[in-house]
């Protein structure tokens, strides 16, 4: 059973068909790349999968529980409900809580799993202290994986750009997802940083039993780590297959480089 199945989803923004008849099936443990030129509709796909936009038509099924056959439609759910079911995301234009500390950014993502309520917080019950200890520990543990643990008390906005991107991933991981959606996680990073990040992404995928869908517009970046690639252009899927297949696909070459182009990667 697929972790996620988008069935023929489309969305129209005031006449503009941003995404048309998009199909996607993600199997458990896959790392799939979603690529395409700028404006192709990649981020819009993420926004539909995470409830930010409702598709104009089509359905999205998500296997939310540990039972492999328990899938349900997530169309119409609010973003926070979808996150709580197990789909987490990062944003292309970093959306950290930039005036809060690194630690608080992660603790906020852990919030919906915290087992005490506002009343217990006001009375500082033992549940409060127990959970606060657990939450801080969990946050630090996740930050350490991305080597930003020692920066936990800095404001998010003061982190270098690359670390802000990492913090976004940590924050998404903190929601304990089954499916992780990364929107151009390497944007703005240099080639070395990008390589390191891609390794890290592969590592967390195995470590946390994740399924990952990764957006990138520079396709050479994802060739190395993605098992499967889907290519969007003008809101439509123009190709899907292994990196080797995609690299040779004439439609993809045309979309990226115009007529007669060729990849050197």
């Amino acid at each position, binding site marked *: 059973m697929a972790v996620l199945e988008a069935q023929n989803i489309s969305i129209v923004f005031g006449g503009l068909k941003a995404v048309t008849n998009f199909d996607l099936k993600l199997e458990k443990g896959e790392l799939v790349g979603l690529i395409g030129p700028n404006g192709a509709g990649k981020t819009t796909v993420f926004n539909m999968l995470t409830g930010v936009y409702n598709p104009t038509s089509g359905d999205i099924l998500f296997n939310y529980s540990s039972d492999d056959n328990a899938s349900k439609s997530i169309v119409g759910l609010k973003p926070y409900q979808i996150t709580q079911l197990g789909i987490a995301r990062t944003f292309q234009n970093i*959306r950290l*809580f930039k005036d809060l500390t690194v630690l*608080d950014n992660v603790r*906020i993502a852990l919030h*919906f799993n915290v087992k005490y309520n506002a009343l217990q917080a006001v009375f500082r019950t033992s549940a409060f202290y127990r959970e606060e200890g657990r939450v801080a520990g969990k946050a630090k543990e996740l930050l350490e994986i991305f080597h930003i643990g020692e920066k936990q008390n800095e404001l998010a906005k003061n982190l270098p750009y690359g670390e802000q991107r990492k913090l976004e991933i940590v924050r998404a991981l903190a929601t304990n997802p089954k499916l992780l959606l990364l929107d151009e996680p390497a944007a703005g990073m240099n080639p070395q940083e990008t390589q390191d990040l891609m390794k890290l992404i592969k590592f967390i995928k195995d470590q946390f039993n994740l399924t990952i869908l990764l957006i990138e517009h520079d396709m050479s970046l994802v060739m190395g780590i993605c098992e499967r690639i889907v290519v969007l252009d003008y809101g439509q899927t123009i190709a899907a297959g292994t990196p080797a297949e995609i690299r040779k696909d004439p439609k993809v070459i045309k979309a990226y480089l115009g007529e007669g182009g060729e990849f050197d990667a």
Partner: protein
Amino acid sequence: MKKNRIFNAVVILGASVVVFVILAALQYIGVIDEYNGQLLTLSGIYIVVALSLNLITGFTGQLALGQAGFMSVGAYTTAIAIMKFHVPMLLAILIGGLVAAVFGIIIGFPTLRLRGDYLAIATLGFGEIIRVLMINLGSLTGGAAGLKGIPAFSETENFVLDAVIKFSWVYVFAVITIVIISNLINSSPGRAIISIREDEIAANSMGINIAYYKIFSFTLSAFLAGVGGGLYGIYMGYLNPTMFGFMPSMNIVVIVVLGGLGSITGTVVASVAFTYIQEWLRVFKDLRLVIFGLALILVMIFWPKGLLGNKELSISGFLRKLFKRENNPERTVSQQNGSREGK
């Protein structure tokens, strides 16, 4: 860990008691005269109400301009409960808070979809509606004439003692309000609330139920404002609808902005400062409002984060530094919860 907890609790309780004893004693022996004692008591009421607004505006990030409306509901409910139904004072004040909280829920839902200026206008309208309601519910509220003869907190023969008891009531409520807001904000639900202020879309994507926490914030805020209103009615001894119009709502906004949106300490300091400055400026009559307006504009321009920005004074943190105890990991949000620039 456990030692830290007890240390915190003892320090906070100890500090509250020490400050209380000093202020009460100074009033009792007359070093703080009756006039200044009244102002201190009024400051305490402002602390309760201004903190309630800071919860919704400073921490949740929702600009609300109708806080005096909630105060009014609490004040009238409390006074009516005491005068018409002979409810004990403490209970009456809590009932006032609860009824105000119901109003908080009622106006919370329709305003969920509103942001920024629109929310500000809607809450402003709410404040006016309440005022008009109080004028027109004559049989209960006394209409435009209002309610007179609300019993005082105590009626001993000793005038000075009565004043000290009045102060004590307000002081206890102010301290409890500070503890409630501070403990809430420095917790996971508090961080959820702050995340709404910081970035609603990101918060939503991190699994935070935005609508729930906005309503929660509105309700608690209304409750506390209602309690503040209940105290105010008893403090004044009379009520009429003009006490809760647009200007009182703006005064509360001024306090919160001056003190710093999202700073509990700032709100406390600004509440006291505002009460005194308002008195000193009384000689200027209506010009006073112009002066406050100008002060607000100047603060916004030169000091956009208010007096204290979002910094907090932490007594236990201070003592710990003094004695070089290890840092307490629990208190990070309020000390570092971010600025409100660039919004």
